[in-house]
């Protein structure tokens, strides 16, 4: 770095730390949890190095953490013995039986109009993703937006307000707390106001879905600019449309599941194949096509890579015995 202010080079420190780690590992000193003090007792020269600079110590802790996490890979030894077929975790019959078990309290909430005009503002910043693409943005306030496939947003920050317009698609928001500077989201049919929290919003076919994993979120419908508001807390999913807002009380685990796309995965529980196909089709150019009603009714459970539609089709073939035929740009699934 700059000569006026020499920072320790991260590269040098990390290289030295990795070399030390490899050496200690070769000598069999790295079993069990990371214990720098014990290593210092065992090796005087390591003691000298690791305590010479704070940067050495943190670099070593970083390397040792990665190495010790990697020990969990030993689990693969057994996992690889499991036949591929196990990806479809439960038999279809069981899936059907479980379908009715999801109890949810539904309450209708009166919507809230939130966006009073902020005129004379500078132009918003525009961000978008293509099909299958995901993008993470860190905004000036430290809020982090994760854009899912086919998404477009405008971001406009002023002194008093932070505004994001969700034009289309799905976004996970991790909003930095700033009570005096509310964070407002205009998603067309639904308006959302938060102070500092995390949640996902999806805008699709006239409905805005808000799934809350942390904090409190106010949701209102654009069409009903009344005075009431619906308040979502963790584990709740709100659906705002031209008809108002409906809130589904679920649990945090269910909400987190809905947000698995951030890790590049999709999870289904007793989900009809036609919905599964629609979900895959959001992310991929190769489209899954279910050719008949009966096949579309088959329920699927499991977690899948959202970008690997071929693998899913193979599994549908192996696990469910479906007919899979490939055509340009599409994969057809049928029962016979």
């Amino acid at each position, binding site marked *: 770095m700059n000569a006026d202010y020499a920072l*320790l080079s991260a590269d040098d420190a990390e290289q030295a730390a990795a*070399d030390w780690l*490899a050496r200690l590992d070769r000598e069999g000193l790295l079993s069990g949890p990371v214990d720098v003090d014990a290593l210092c007792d065992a090796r005087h020269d390591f003691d000298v190095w690791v305590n010479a600079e704070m940067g050495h110590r943190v670099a070593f802790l970083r390397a040792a953490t990665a190495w010790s996490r990697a020990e969990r890979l030993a689990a693969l030894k057994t996992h690889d013995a499991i036949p591929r077929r196990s990806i479809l975790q439960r038999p279809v019959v069981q899936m059907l039986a479980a379908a009715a078990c999801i109890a949810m309290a539904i309450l209708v909430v009166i919507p809230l109009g939130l966006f009073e005009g902020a005129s004379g503002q500078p132009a918003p910043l525009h961000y978008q993703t293509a099909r299958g693409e995901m993008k993470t943005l860190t905004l000036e*306030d430290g809020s982090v937006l994760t854009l899912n496939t086919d998404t477009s947003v405008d971001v406009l920050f002023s002194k008093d307000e932070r505004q994001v317009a969700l034009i289309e698609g799905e976004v996970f928001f*991790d909003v930095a707390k700033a009570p005096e500077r509310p964070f407002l989201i205009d998603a067309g049919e639904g308006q959302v106001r938060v102070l500092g929290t995390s949640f996902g919003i999806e805008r699709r076919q006239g409905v805005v879905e808000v799934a809350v994993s942390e904090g409190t979120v106010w949701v209102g419908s654009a069409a009903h600019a009344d005075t009431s508001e619906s308040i979502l807390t963790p584990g709740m999913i709100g659906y705002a449309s031209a008809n108002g807002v409906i809130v589904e009380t679920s649990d945090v685990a269910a909400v987190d599941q809905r947000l698995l796309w951030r890790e590049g995965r999709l999870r289904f529980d007793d989900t009809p194949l036609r919905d599964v196909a629609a979900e895959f089709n959001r992310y991929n150019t190769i489209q899954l096509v279910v050719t008949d009603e009966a096949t579309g009714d088959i329920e699927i459970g499991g*977690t899948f890579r959202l970008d690997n539609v071929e693998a899913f089709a193979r599994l549908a073939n192996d696990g469910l015995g479906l007919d899979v035929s490939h055509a340009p740009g599409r994969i057809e699934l049928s029962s016979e």
Partner: protein
Amino acid sequence: MSKNVDQWFMDTVLPLEAELERFLARHWSDASEVRDLRQEVYSRLYKSAANGLPHNTRALMYSTARNLIIDLVRRKRVVSIETVMDFESWDVSSEEAGPFETVSARQELSMLRTALETLPRRTRDIVQMRRVQGMSQRETAHALGVSEPTVERHVSKGVRLLADALAKLGVHRGAVISPANDMEGERER
């Protein structure tokens, strides 16, 4: 004493690495220096935690990052107009403790597997023999017909690449919970 701080650093600071680097990249014009800044933030965080563990690591991390950048700017570097403007609207007090997401053992495993797949082949094989098969470096060298220093070099390279890959994958990741029985399907590769 230092053991507590070490543990705090590994459990609480390291999972924030991707977030920290994004923040630094956003506020520092030279991307090639972000790692050095991150490293310096780590050192400062560690030093301050040695005098007492913070209640809110994330908030401390952001204010430390901000102070570091201010230090550097004061030492008269060429600073882009954008950076200066960011400063004025920059309210670090708003960076409150965010959620620490937890990951299941299965998610952790698939993350590790993804990280492993980013390694060059030879290095990956050696890391696999060492970590998956549980062979010692000597046994690994023997099995591959190479010298022990060669294995050691690959372990060094492997751990560096793994640390970087895991930091990239482990955005907002906290501790690992609920070991065995989450009902996820086996991940397709």
